[in-house]
């Protein structure tokens, strides 16, 4: 079923180059979001819509609230006792606070963390973990196919196909990061969130992953938090600029990078004047 839906979307964007226009369906609608840790406000007044099949970039210096934003979306606030989220977030039109089963929500949203987390199990099991747990009861063959497909899509298959049963944590940093991408894809998510994925990855691997993302975007919505301004420029259709817990500006990436900004702080950040 999921596959069928993905197939249909792929047909809409055969070459993947056209950005989803402002009339495209909304994947994630955020309204007056505020995130606090105890008494400290980490992010406030964020309202934005993320469209289906777009790559939405978020840039901003350290402590601007980017990671907190992602954590609110897949309800990781439940794992942090001091984190409170107010305002609302609609995923596919449904308020995420109304989801009774957060695990089912998270299965639709893949996450890639700044530092790769290879779980202490084999490469195969890293990718097969989530499908096994989701109760789909795939046959051995179907699972093998799924693992191969995810690893291929993450551009890792050729490097690991002969050592699927060795520990995932023994891979190099760049390989582990691609492993976590493969793992995030293992449930055919509707949306993929990447948090500064290239922090521990060499430039060549970063480029390979960027190519992967351009491909993936035909099948899913991507939120790309990045500390590299140029990475947002290369990949994102639209970009938001976060600064000190405030969403300063959201705009078409091309426009922002060609100087059409509403706020001079955005300009300064893009030009590397601070942060």
């Amino acid at each position, binding site marked *: 079923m999921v596959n069928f839906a993905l197939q249909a979307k792929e047909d809409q964007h055969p070459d993947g180059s056209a950005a989803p226009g402002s009339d495209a369906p909304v994947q994630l609608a955020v309204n007056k979001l505020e995130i606090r840790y105890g008494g400290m406000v980490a992010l406030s007044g964020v309202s934005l819509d993320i469209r289906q099949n777009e790559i939405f970039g978020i840039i901003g210096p350290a402590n601007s609230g980017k990671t907190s934003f992602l954590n609110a979306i897949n309800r990781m606030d439940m794992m942090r006792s001091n984190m409170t989220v107010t305002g609302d977030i609609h995923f596919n039109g449904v308020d995420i606070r109304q989801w009774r089963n957060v*695990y089912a929500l*998270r299965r639709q949203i893949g*996450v890639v*963390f700044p*530092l790769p*987390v290879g*779980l*202490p199990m084999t490469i195969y099991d890293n990718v097969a973990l989530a499908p096994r*747990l989701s109760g789909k009861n795939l046959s051995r063959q179907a699972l093998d196919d799924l693992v191969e497909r995810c690893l291929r899509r993450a551009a890792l298959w050729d490097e690991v196909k002969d050592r699927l049963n060795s520990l995932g944590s023994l891979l190099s940093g760049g390989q582990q990061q691609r492993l976590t991408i493969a*793992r995030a894809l293992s449930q055919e998510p509707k949306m993929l969130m990447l948090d500064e994925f290239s922090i521990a990855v060499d430039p060549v691997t970063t480029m390979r992953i960027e190519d992967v993302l351009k491909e993936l975007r035909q099948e899913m919505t991507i939120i790309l938090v990045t500390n590299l301004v140029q990475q947002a420029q290369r990949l994102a259709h639209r970009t938001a600029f976060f600064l000190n817990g405030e969403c300063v500006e959201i705009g078409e990436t091309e426009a922002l990078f060609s100087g059409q900004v509403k706020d001079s702080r955005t300009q300064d950040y893009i030009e590397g004047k601070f942060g």
Partner: protein
Amino acid sequence: MSGQHTDAALAENAGDSLDANWYIDKLFQGVMFVCGISAVLFVLGIFAFVFAEGAEFVIKTINWSQFLLSPRWAPTSDYNPTYGILALIAGTASITVLAMAVAVPFSLGAAIFIAEFAKGRTREVLKILIELLAAIPSVVWGFIGLAIMNPWIIETFDVPIGLNVLNCGLILGLMAAPIITSIAEDALKAVPDTYREASEALGASRWQTTARVVLPAAKNGLLAAVLLGVGRGFGETMAVLMASGHSINLPSSVFDSVRALTATIAAELGETAVGSEHYQALFTIGIFLFTITFIINMTADWIIRGSKKG
């Protein structure tokens, strides 16, 4: 540079000076080395002492098949003193097995709850309670066995004596549980939170995360916790002496009284003449306990090594 002439002055010139930190470092390395070595020496010394005391018996007097296979432990018999420890082994084993059957599931469950599910205050209170439980001296546990469990067992199960395998196993299980729990909890805490977050971000539930990611990652530590519990049960003396009934028996049910290896040494050593056959036999039991502990530890080591490779 030029081999022979790399003298202190040259080194000094290049900025390679032996400063206070260097000497302190060397000093502490030395101190730590002495501490480490002395720990090894103490263990060897104890072993040598126990072995020396039992040596004569082991080498000359002992009848191995009788020692290991006879259930008759009658060292004070005038006409036919017999030293068979089978019943004592059975006593220790039955108590330890029952204790572990009680303590392991209970403690692992408690450790998982504290480490993975309990939050804030609940967790703190539970941890304090567990630590309090671990601090209760064994003679108090023995007293509980005598004064509370004994009448309770007699009444509930309608048996003549309440000092038996059941009583002692439960007491020992309760004693081992807090230790296993707190070591197992440490093992779970040592699993990085990033694993939990990665797993939950994939949509795994808290329980799935625990079962599929956290427990496998912590398995060595958990195994160590269980083995420490076994060691505790095996070596415990006072509570066992008080709660087991201390009568020589090959138990056929949990309601039989038994006598443990450790309790036998504790109860009899003070009344034997130093150097007598009985005295030496008790030390031979000591050697036996030593050996078993050694085997348990080596096995644990071997299992842990094996699981690391896998």
